[in-house]
């Protein structure tokens, strides 16, 4: 469903993504991990046609992200890292806007929009301007906009940020259900616990390079830390224990 081959993105002298090659199968939830500035969001932007790769290729749903951008965009749904929405639209109007953009039939919209608003506990807020929504509410609305389209490929950049525990639990269940129905989920996250429990496979990126790829068990073996959790593996691979000396001085 998602495939990259030596995918590279440079910004001047900075190599944000360096020869990334990976494949995500239908029905798979793939966790994409890495410290801040590792190149995760740049990868997401290339997969969704927002950025053009400097070199290498990527396919989403069998379509080349550069040559067949519109076909790719028809098939995927994006949840960006910041849920920027139009502040002067109401929640319901935003969902209608998204549905119209993706040509969802009117009868489906009429049925599904109130259902999704209710599911995310936004029904009472559906007629309110988005400028009065909190970050978490906007995040839920963007997720509702994605689910409205029943997409086969979801690209999720930190989808859990700002969600309350109840909504986060529900969203995790939704992702599992979508996966069981054959949808591909490509998820960037900093919450390692979620990645550990939800993802079939994870990839760890640092300074633009994919340094580890596989199931959590495979990563444990790679890091020679069989009894450790994903957080320990992540920190050992990315050098995250360096702060311990600094902590002593606090």
């Amino acid at each position, binding site marked *: 469903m998602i495939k990259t081959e030596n995918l590279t993105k440079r910004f001047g002298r900075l190599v944000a993504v360096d020869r990334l090659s990976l494949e995500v199968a239908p029905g798979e939830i793939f966790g994409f991990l890495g410290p801040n500035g590792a190149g995760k969001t740049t990868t997401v932007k290339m997969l969704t046609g927002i950025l053009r790769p400097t070199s290498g290729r990527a396919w989403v749903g069998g379509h080349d992200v550069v040559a067949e951008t519109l076909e790719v965009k*028809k098939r995927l749904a994006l949840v960006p890292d910041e849920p*920027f929405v139009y502040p002067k639209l109401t929640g319901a109007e935003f969902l209608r806007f998204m549905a119209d*953009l993706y040509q969802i039939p009117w009868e489906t919209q009429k049925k599904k929009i109130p259902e999704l608003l209710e599911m995310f506990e936004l029904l009472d807020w559906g*007629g309110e301007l988005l400028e009065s929504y909190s970050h978490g509410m906007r995040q839920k609305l963007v997720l509702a906009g994605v689910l409205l389209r029943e997409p086969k490929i979801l690209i999720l950049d930190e989808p859990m940020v700002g969600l309350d525990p109840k909504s986060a639990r529900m969203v995790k269940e939704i992702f599992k259900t979508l996966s069981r129905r054959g949808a591909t989920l490509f998820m960037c996250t900093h919450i390692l616990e979620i990645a550990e429990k939800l993802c079939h496979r994870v990839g760890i990126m640092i300074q633009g390079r994919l340094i580890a790829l596989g199931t959590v068990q495979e990563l444990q073996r790679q890091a020679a830390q069989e009894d450790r959790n994903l957080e320990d593996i992540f920190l050992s691979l990315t050098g995250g224990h360096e702060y311990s000396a600094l902590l002593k001085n606090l």
Partner: protein
Amino acid sequence: MRAFWILLYRRWLSLKNSLVSQDFWAWTKKIFFGLAGLAILVGLYFGFVRVLNYLEGVSLIGSLLSWKLTAMTLLTTFSMVAISGLITAMTTLYYSYDLRFLMSAPVPTRFLFLDKSLETAFYSSWTLALVIFPYILALGNIKSLPFSFYFVFSGLFVPFLALGAAFGIGLSLALMYFFPSSKTRDVIWIFSSLAFACVYVLIRYSQPEKLIRPDALEVVADYLNYLQAPTAAYLPSWWLTKALMAYTSGNWAMVWRQAGLIVGGAVFVYLLLVWAAGRFYVTGFSGSQEGVRWERGLQLRPSWEQRGFKCLNLPREISVFLSKDRKTFFRDVKHWSQLLLIMALVLVYLFSIRQLPLETPDLKSFVSFLNIGIAGFVIAALSLRFTFPAISLEGKSYWIFKSAPLNVRSLMREKFLFSVFPTMFLGTVLVGFSNHLLGADVFISSVSVATILLCTWTLCGMGVGFGALFPRFHVENVHQIESSAGGFLYMACALGYLTLTVAVEAGPIRMYFMERMGRAHPWNWNWIIFCVGTLLLLNAAAFYVPGVLGRRVLENYEGD
């Protein structure tokens, strides 16, 4: 008090860093705009010199006339600063981006209020202060006053402006205390804009040019008593006028008395405001942070744009964005304020056209033709404000478009459609009504209306094209988009385009006037065909070239 100095120090650091971080292009732009501003001020100075020279030359009442004009000018300035202060205070005192942080810091509320009040006073008065500067220079020159006059004026003008701004600051403090809601800001914005528009229209309707027309002198003489009477005696504008008058006559006692009123008044008012802020500011601030529930219900019906486009079998995605843009445009109260000001501009424009002292029908028709250029300039300026930023105003929500299965061409077409019809309507009103008021003949009226329709079409196309060519999605407000390099280039190209349009049409128009004046066989048809062809080519180039270039830039856009 230390907290207050820290607050002021951060302003100094911001100013210093913004100056140091400017690149070559930013400096070039600043110097260019600075020189353009200076040229306008010099032009204003010579205009004021001419007016004041004439007034001073009127026998018996010359000096009275010039002081009356000074009093009226200062009164207008004071009113404008007061209204501007109210609008600015609503933002600086309640919605500045740094307030949430500062309010949570251990800074006494009164110091924070004073810091924000000084910011308000500065931003609401600096442009007006700049415009008054050439007037005072002209006054000093005409009355042959010594250099110390400017020192006295400068010393009193700063507290005078502070008093004007204090009115807006105090009113906003009171309004937000009694009506602590974010809706108060919207209501104040609309009413302040209405007040601005009314002051602007009333100043023009009072026909100040009559003061310098000889045929009005008899009337002026009749109102000698009116001229001698104070203009709004209880307002600081009259105190300042009196101080300046007393200075020119060497009455130092009066100068000190008026100076005491102005400076003492400013100190007293700000002390009072700071005291009141300690009691009322936090209540208003807290209210301003609360959201207002809209409660419109779900409203899931298709919009009229979508229904219309479906009936006409036009692209659905364009109607979706049109509907979104209409809603977001009219729900933003700042746009209502701007629409009110545009209405005032149109009224003043048409009134000024009506007042033009034109005697012959030929002259009226000729002015009607030249009016294409002026109306075109107004349209270009409005396009710079509304059409050019349209794509950039998608802002941080641009990801929605970019990740959707839409092409850039559709978005550009939608932005064009959203702007072009209101702009064409406005162009037709400006030119059509001007023709009617001038009594222009049918031929010139038809040519000018057709030309302005063509110009608005092209200017909107250029606006969208340049907007795509220079997108800026990560800005805090629309003024940063307008004043960008792209905005400057758009305006320069728009003015060049308008100049060429008038120049190309000048040939056939000249032939028409020659025929009216009785010249035999004035029409050179080859020349006319050449002019029409050139005009069409010019419009096609102005419309398509920025559009095609802009589309390419937007398709490859990867961030600011």
